[in-house]
């Protein structure tokens, strides 16, 4: 009989290997999925995981795309990691992403056709503010009315979608767009355009800023007292309160960081790769970033690796769609499987698998706690 035995101390080895185990399990599970769909599993896996990186015919497109897709995922996941470490579950980064894009775009479009090097930075600051304000709604409701931030932040995603649609069919609709529900293209005005910095690499300001943020977050997590307080809260509020942590402040700051970074990612995406706002602008980066954060162990470096992997599944998934005629949902199933297997593999961090029946009366002591105490 298989049995789980608690470890005296969390295994650092397993903390590192659990994501790898999850990836392997996902590849196997995904292969089986494609087999059931009637596709060659080996070819499918190769198209998703190998071709975007190494197929000579594709890399000129796919390699830059990898960075373009990974940057917003990593940026949002970095923000999420603070809250997740503290046990604050912001599930609504997608909404903060959209509101950041809207706020930043609105500022930029209002200034059009003005020119100036200060316009793009101003848009980015507005984007940060938009995401931050949107995240303050669940934060303040939680602090003052003890609402559940999971529900509030998630519901606000759908509100943000509606606002986006209202804006692109109303005030932000392009005057030269034949009444299509979309904004003016940011590519029209070089001052608003978050353009490629080095041609052919896909590198735009978002990727540069993400790189800097990774270093900053690593430093704050590791060296700053705030990072320590966040970790303490994740252990228990009682410990944190004993240590003198101002719990409500940490809740607000964590949600604020997530909102600000998601908003920044939103405006960078809108003014860069997306190029304009439309109802199809959100593609679920805010949700996928949750998987990225956990797959990356809530650690900045891990998040970079996880973000790249997720970007790979996006691009590989697109390839699989037109090369194999695979359904678009297959890639979401892939991403879902990854999180699922990760959560399963995480059990091994705190438990070890033992084969056989329990030997000695350690189980006796457990029964005491299970029974009535007095």
């Amino acid at each position: 009989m298989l049995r789980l035995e608690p470890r005296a101390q969390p295994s650092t080895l397993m903390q590192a290997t659990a994501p790898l185990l999850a990836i392997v399990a996902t590849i196997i599970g995904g292969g089986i999925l494609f087999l059931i769909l009637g596709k060659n599993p080996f070819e499918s896996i190769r198209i998703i995981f190998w071709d975007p990186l190494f197929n000579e015919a594709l890399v000129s497109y796919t390699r830059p795309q990898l960075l373009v897709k990974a940057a917003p995922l990593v940026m949002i996941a970095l923000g999420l990691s603070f809250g997740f470490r503290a046990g604050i579950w912001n599930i609504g980064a997608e909404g903060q992403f959209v509101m950041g894009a809207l706020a930043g775009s609105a500022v930029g479009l209002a200034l059009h056709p003005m020119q100036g090097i200060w316009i793009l930075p101003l848009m980015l600051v507005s984007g940060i503010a938009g995401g931050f304000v949107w995240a303050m709604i669940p934060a303040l409701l939680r602090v003052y009315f003890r609402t559940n931030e999971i529900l509030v932040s998630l519901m606000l995603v759908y509100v943000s979608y509606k606002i986006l649609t209202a804006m692109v069919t109303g005030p932000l609709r392009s005057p030269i767009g034949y009444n299509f529900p979309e904004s003016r293209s940011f590519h029209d005005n070089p001052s608003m355009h978050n353009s490629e910095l080095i041609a052919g690499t896909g590198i735009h300001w978002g990727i540069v800023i993400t790189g800097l943020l990774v270093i900053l977050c690593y430093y704050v997590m590791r060296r700053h007292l705030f990072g320590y307080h966040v970790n303490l809260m994740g252990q228990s509020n009682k410990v944190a309160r004993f240590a003198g942590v101002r719990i409500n402040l940490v809740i607000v700051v964590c949600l604020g960081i997530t909102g600000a970074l998601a908003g920044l990612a939103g405006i960078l995406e809108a003014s860069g790769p997306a190029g304009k706002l439309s109802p199809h602008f959100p593609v679920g980066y805010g949700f996928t970033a949750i998987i990225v954060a956990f797959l990356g162990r809530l650690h900045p470096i891990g998040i970079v690796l996880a973000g790249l992997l997720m970007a790979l599944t996006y691009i590989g998934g697109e390839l699989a769609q037109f090369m194999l005629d695979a359904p678009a949902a297959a890639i979401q199933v892939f991403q879902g499987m990854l999180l699922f297997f990760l959560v399963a593999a995480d059990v091994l961090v705190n438990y070890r698998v033992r084969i056989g029946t329990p030997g000695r009366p350690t189980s006796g002591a457990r029964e005491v706690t299970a029974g009535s105490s007095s």
Partner: protein
Amino acid sequence: MSKADTHRTDAGRQFGPLLCLQELSKAYPGVQACDQISMSIDHSAIHALLGENGAGKSTLVKMIYGLVRPDSGSMSFNGSAFAPAQPRTARAAGVAMVFQHFSLFEALTVSENILLSLDDAQMAGIAERIRGVAESYHLLLEPGRMVGDLSAGERQRVEIVRCLMQNPKLLIMDEPTSVLTPQEVDSLFGTLRRLAGEGTSILYISHKLEEIRELCADATILRQGKVVDSCDPRECSAEQLAEMMVGTSIGRAGSKQKMRDRILLRVAGLSLENSAPFGVNLSDINFDLHAGEILGIAGIAGNGQDELQGALSGELPVSSGQCQLHGEDVITHSSSRRRKLGLLTAPEQRLGHAASPDMSLTENTLLSGTLRMKLAPRGIVDWKHTRRFATDIIEGFDVRTSGTQAAARSLSGGNLQKFLIGREILQKPEVLVVNQPTWGVDANAAAAVRRALIQLADAGSGILVISQDLDELLEISDRIAVLSAGRLSRSLPTSETSRTEIGLLMAESQDATS
């Protein structure tokens, strides 16, 4: 012991004891819960098991009921060997138990709850069977009612009827009156006497002395896992019982006479309303703590100990009152600011309150030492300095661990407690508030912790020790006060008080709370 011996010789007779325990022992990590306990319970007897919290009463009855397996020793029940591996076996033999905390499902009816516990569950006719049993013992009970709608007394009746449906030969009752009104207690006693009259033996666990004197004909007294005495409680005074319960040996009390004039901490009119479940309110707490003094706060857990510690540390907001440290009122200060001023605390719960279980000892050092030890100047953690401080604690307090990177939860209770007390002491507190400093700690570590506290007081700090362990308080404190139902008694100099006096005060206060 003498009583147990006579019973053993009785065993050959036709009506020997119903249950006979021989040298039962059970140890948990760091504590010998039961140490070679021998006793016996006669047929049709109401037998009291008396002892302070932590004396081993619960562990002992859990062994009889098959919830815990003894490390050594043997039992015989009704003349044959008895070693229940699980409660089902014990029930089959005729042992039933009513727990202190009810184990009922509130969303189910009385019948359904009772049905769940029966080994021969049959829905048909269950209500009639329940009514039959309930009526024959004059226990008012309506099988169709939801348990959630019942009072504590009614719920207990459900538990009792549930036990009686199994026709037990021995009924174990763990602190049955702690949730009952006086009227319910009277009716419970009537039921128990009737049961005993019909041949069922009852093992009655309590620390309420008057109750035991009224109800029981035999009593076995446990102290620190050992049988210390047995008697007929009807022939003993409450004072005598209290003395047996808390022991009679004289400690080192009175050896220190170092009352100093300087008041470090003055608490005046402190009240706190606790909205948490099972929370206790503090009302009008007053005391002075002098430099170089150890003030002991005795009392049974759940009388406001955690609340007092939380109010002093700044973790719990108080509703009124003052807390003056060096004459400055700190009651509105955050816990960080109090710490900075020298008011440090060591909570009872080690993992999850005083220490973060999965974090390393170094990280746990930072937990309370940030400000006073300047471990994070301008918010940037100096890990090297923090690690050095952790090493100092480990070396200074003989903490057995693999090193500063060990997770707090990997340490034994005693070693972790030495670490946590050491963490506060090395910060040179002006005032240290310690809650249950040696709870669940092995004897060596407990002695080390006490020694460290005395040294700290000798160096001029004021220490407030909140403890259930009266021996401990008599050993180390200069004055003792009792906390009961959220109220603090006046303090008595340890040298002028006796165990009996405090033991009685503790037992009385327990009666007042329930």
